[in-house]
């Protein structure tokens, strides 16, 4: 009986699966039960009730308005906004830099190629945390105090307190200009069938000039004024203007330089995956190298680039948690501060993990949709 069961492959697979499930879920249940028991023993209240309490800690920089009297939930939102803000900036900057890097690595010019390779090997083979701390120490320690701030351009000051530059404020009826631009965009999208049918019409140029004219007119009628506010030294720090804190500068610089190396190699791989014949064919059609790259090679290489680039963008978002090392108040920074203050470790980490899982899943979804669109274009 037992022998027959043992040598029956279906019975064996069922037994194996039951065993694996018991082991896995049993361990999980054991851990959760222990946690529950320990928490009730120590009298630690669990739950998310504390989110509405006042946070009582300052956040040095934020996109959303925030005061220490605001709730923890508000502080988390502020941290999340900061995370998303720096992620988007790094993604855009590192993609552009990575593209340039890919071109430099493909160049036959020995110096350009050598410098790009040197940069790549250095950034890819040292830990990101070390690089971030290196930039942070360079920004904070080797720069002068605000009184002796470096002044490379008029109105731009670089000191230990960060980078200050003039801010531009728009006054007057500026939404009118934005509406005009939005309308122009809608019209452009609406004209798409016509553009497809009659590609020889100089629609693009006419449209561009028209939009520019409409914007200028809206600008004039709305009395839009641009005024710039230069930073002024008051006491020990600068007032006015726009400021980038040392933390933000170090994080942006470090993450961008690090990620650009990885993005660059992905882009280079994509460009190299396009057959050499495509370059030659475009050349024989009389296209210039840049046009060839833009119209022939890049669209084809996107198919190869998009899947690894998705995971690269996701790892950038995850890498922003290293803001903890330099002290930029992103989500992980706010949450660890909260955990230290309230002791609600499980809830805080659950929020952190939940948010990152949501971001990961939604970015994968979005990039998969984009990927499908590119593939569809190719089939046509």
């Amino acid at each position: 009986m037992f022998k027959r069961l043992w040598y029956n492959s279906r019975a064996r697979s069922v037994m194996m699966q039951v065993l694996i499930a018991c082991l896995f879920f049993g361990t999980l249940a054991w851990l959760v039960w222990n946690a529950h028991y320990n928490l009730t023993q120590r009298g630690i209240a669990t739950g998310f009730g504390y989110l509405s309490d006042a946070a009582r800690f300052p956040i040095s920089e934020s996109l959303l308005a925030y005061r220490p009297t605001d709730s923890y939930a508000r502080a988390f939102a502020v941290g999340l906004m900061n995370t998303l803000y720096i992620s988007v900036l790094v993604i855009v900057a590192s993609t552009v830099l990575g593209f340039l890097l890919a071109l430099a690595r493909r160049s036959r010019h020995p110096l350009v190629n050598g410098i790009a390779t040197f940069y790549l090997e250095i950034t890819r083979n040292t830990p990101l945390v070390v690089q971030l701390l290196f930039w942070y120490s360079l920004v904070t320690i080797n720069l002068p105090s605000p009184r002796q701030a470096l002044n490379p351009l008029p109105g731009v000051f670089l000191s230990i307190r960060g980078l200050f530059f003039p801010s531009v404020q728009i006054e007057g009826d500026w939404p009118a200009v934005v509406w005009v631009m939005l309308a122009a965009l809608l019209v452009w999208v609406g004209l798409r069938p016509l553009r497809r049918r009659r590609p020889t019409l100089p629609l693009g140029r006419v449209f561009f000039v028209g939009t520019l004219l409409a914007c200028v007119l809206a600008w004039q009628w709305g009395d839009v004024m641009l005024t710039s506010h230069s930073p002024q030294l008051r006491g020990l720090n600068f007032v006015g203007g726009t400021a980038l804190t040392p933390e933000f500068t170090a994080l942006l610089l470090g993450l961008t330089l690090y990620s650009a190396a990885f993005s660059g190699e992905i882009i280079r791989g994509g460009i190299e995956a396009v057959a050499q014949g495509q370059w030659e064919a475009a050349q024989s059609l009389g296209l210039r190298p840049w046009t060839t790259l833009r119209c022939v090679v890049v669209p084809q290489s996107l198919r190869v680039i998009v899947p690894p680039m998705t995971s690269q963008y996701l790892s950038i978002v995850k890498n922003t948690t290293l803001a903890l090392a330099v002290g930029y108040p992103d989500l992980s920074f706010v949450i660890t501060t909260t955990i230290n203050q309230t002791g609600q470790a499980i809830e805080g980490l659950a929020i952190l993990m939940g948010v990152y899982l949501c971001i990961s899943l939604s970015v994968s979804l979005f990039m998969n949709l984009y990927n499908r669109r590119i593939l569809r274009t190719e089939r046509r």
Partner: protein
Amino acid sequence: MTTISISPDVPARSAPIDRRDSAMHRLFGTVVSSVATVVALGLGLYALSRFADWSLINAVWPGEPGAMCRRATGACWAFLGEKLNQILFGIYPPAQQWRPALVCAFILFMVVLSLSPRQWRLRTVVLWLVGMAGSLALMQGGWFGLERVPTASWGGLPVTLLLAVCALGIGMPLGVLLALARRGSLPVARFIATCVIELIRGLPLISLLFMASIVLPIMLPAGMTIDSLLRAGIALTIFSAAYLAEVIRGGLQSLPAGQLEASRALGLSWWQMTRLVVLPQAMRKVIAPLTNTAIVMIKNTSLVLIVGLFDLLSSGRAALTDPAWPTPYVETYFFIAGIYFCICFGLSRYSMWLERRFKKGELR
């Protein structure tokens, strides 16, 4: 009768020389490349001279007193000379520092030894296991009159190496298991493996490290504690297992189905098939991505800084807090980055060599 006349040997015509291949043409062939040459040379020489000023000419060398660093405009290498032991071995008792030094030397020796494919056999694995157990025992002490050193006083390079070896050495078999489960025929195992892999890959490593350092102690029964170094090791291991599993899955997927059918037809059991047919071929295909993942994991060990463990980076930062010295952050980070660079760059070159070697084997 016809005579066979042998025509004189004609030397093979060499390939025509492409004028565009010459170094001169690449550097100054067109206006654009000439501008690029001048700009790159100018910037490069400027950066190089500034760097040489800072690191060589104005530097304070080991042996000179720390006070000189405050006046000098160059690098303070004297600090590194003075604090070398503290950066490399953390707060391990100075008289006992031959022990972590021996452990580091052993691990590096074993890594170099295992690089050669000729050493990929059971004996090396056993040597690794025995050696690692011996290393841990030597670090811990408490036997044969060796002073007992708790893990809280371990630090520096040995901690980084131990964490990396643990994350990769235990993470690799775990990753193989996860990948096999995800590609396998058991629905429950596939579901669990997929969930675990996707969950962990969707999370930042820092959240896992916090989980291990803050939440894991709450999840254990009263009286049972796990050392904090071990907890970080567990988090790193699980993290690397998930990433390695995805890489290995890529290798498994690229295997032609005929290989599996052929081994079935030969009557191999599942285990024999996996061990003798599937894994050797699958792993060979993913050497480059596997090495990349390994490099990423070695770099990731530096994140334990954030949960307060003393790896190489944190002991470097701890050494900087000495009030008797100025704080040469840049020099210290250079030194630490240099150590990581040697390990990671060496590994990446090694993987290229290995790939070439296997490719040559296939052509033969």
